[in-house]
């Protein structure tokens, strides 16, 4: 790893915010460096809880986070927020507006808000969001909240990163998201009906309960909480539900640490393989092989074996 980056890492681990912020950009801009940085963070990570907040645009995710932060502060020394908004597929640019709602504690040393564009990743998270979690974790941010857009199946990805996933909906959700009901209800541990100052809360709760009942293999029926984010109504209750859910999942730190490490190695291995694959597919070997005619299943099997052999040789030469 180059000297600049090790210096930044040293500084970030000693609580230098600017260094941490710079590393986050480096990881966003360069996935190879991100993988390297994460690998070097491995010994220091696995100390934080990660709460994912997902839901359709405008549901009140940012407002809820803004309201939760001061309450969470009673249980956690400090909080990092990673807020992901979609990047434009045309310009690659993005309007990152979540901070507008998270304004009440912006001046506090104990809060670090980082906005991210999804940069072409379709899963609702930016590709580097997970790397950012590793960094915040290593730099002693004990609570990490991720805000991400989720509609339908998309929020599934957050469930792989977060210890607890909170799905935010509004009254009337059943009417708008009829077709997506199955998708939106699969990954949540907690469901929030925010904007419950609006009509239709009861109907929405019943519809939600019905959809949740349809999901098989759930060890625990998800809780439904009603909130009004901009008047702080129901926020203490929501935080209790989150904290309780963290407990009941038996998420002790050792377990989280093991899980994170496992996930990290998974990601790094598949990243390396994809990289090798990317280079391999450009080689003449691969180009020639695929232009051959495949006439029977054995040929296809042989072809696959050859390609796998090529990849494993490449990986060994890394």
């Amino acid at each position, binding site marked *: 790893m180059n000297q600049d980056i090790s210096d930044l890492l040293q500084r970030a681990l000693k609580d230098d*915010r600017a260094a941490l*912020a710079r590393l986050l950009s480096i990881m966003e801009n360069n*996935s190879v460096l991100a993988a390297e940085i994460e690998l070097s963070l491995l010994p220091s990570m696995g100390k934080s809880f990660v709460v994912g907040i997902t839901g359709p645009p405008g549901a009140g995710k940012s407002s809820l986070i803004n309201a939760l932060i001061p309450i969470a502060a009673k249980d956690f020394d400090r909080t990092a927020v990673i807020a992901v908004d979609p990047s*434009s597929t045309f*310009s690659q640019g993005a309007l*990152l507006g979540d901070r507008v709602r998270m*304004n009440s504690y*912006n001046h506090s040393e104990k809060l670090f808000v980082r906005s991210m564009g999804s940069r072409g990743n379709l899963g609702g998270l930016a590709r580097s969001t997970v790397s950012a979690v590793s960094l915040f974790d290593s730099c002693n941010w004990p609570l990490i909240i991720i805000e991400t857009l989720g509609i339908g199946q998309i929020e599934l990805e957050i469930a792989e990163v977060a210890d607890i996933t909170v799905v935010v909906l509004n009254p009337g959700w059943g009417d708008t998201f009829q077709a997506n009901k199955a998708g939106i209800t699969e990954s949540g541990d907690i469901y929030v009906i925010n904007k419950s100052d609006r009509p239709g809360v009861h109907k929405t709760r019943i519809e939600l309960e019905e959809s949740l009942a349809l999901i098989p293999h759930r060890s625990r029926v998800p809780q439904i909480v009603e909130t009004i984010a901009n008047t702080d109504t129901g926020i203490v209750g929501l935080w209790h539900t989150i904290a309780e859910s963290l407990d009941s999942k038996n998420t002790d730190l050792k377990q989280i640490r093991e899980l994170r490490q496992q996930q990290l190695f998974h990601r790094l291995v598949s990243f390396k393989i994809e990289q090798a694959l990317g280079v391999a597919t450009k080689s003449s070997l691969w180009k020639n092989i695929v232009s051959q005619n495949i006439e029977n299943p054995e040929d296809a099997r042989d072809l696959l074996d050859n390609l796998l052999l090529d990849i494993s040789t490449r990986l060994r030469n890394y």
Partner: protein
Amino acid sequence: MFLEKLLAIGMFPYNSEASNTMEQKRILMAKTGLDGHWRGPTIVARALRDAGYEVIMIGMATGEEILRACVDEDVDLVGLNIGGHINVALRAIEAIKKERQSVPIFAGGTITPASARELNALGVEVYPPGSSLTDIVEAADRLTQRKQA
């Protein structure tokens, strides 16, 4: 054949070197006065987004909040929307000059000629009402030293 097809539909996300590295410039957009006037900064932010920038909006903010966002978001440029008084803007500029000296600042909105001169003297470029969005995007390209695509 099947492999070519997979490549064509982009099944292998890392098959181009370019996808590993993507330098994206980031701009902070803050409002320092007259909170009802959000049209100007929003139009400017959209133009910058359409030009490929990640624009971090923070709405109305104090000098300290602007500095905090500037550091935490690791931005390449700070944009200040000013409405009348420039006191908050001056505090933000002073703080940024002290802590993040290398981050350039530009500004727009309702600014009197005298205030514009004061800002210019501090190295802050000013784009008053009526400025063209093309000029503003060009200024961003120049100030962030973004390579032209």
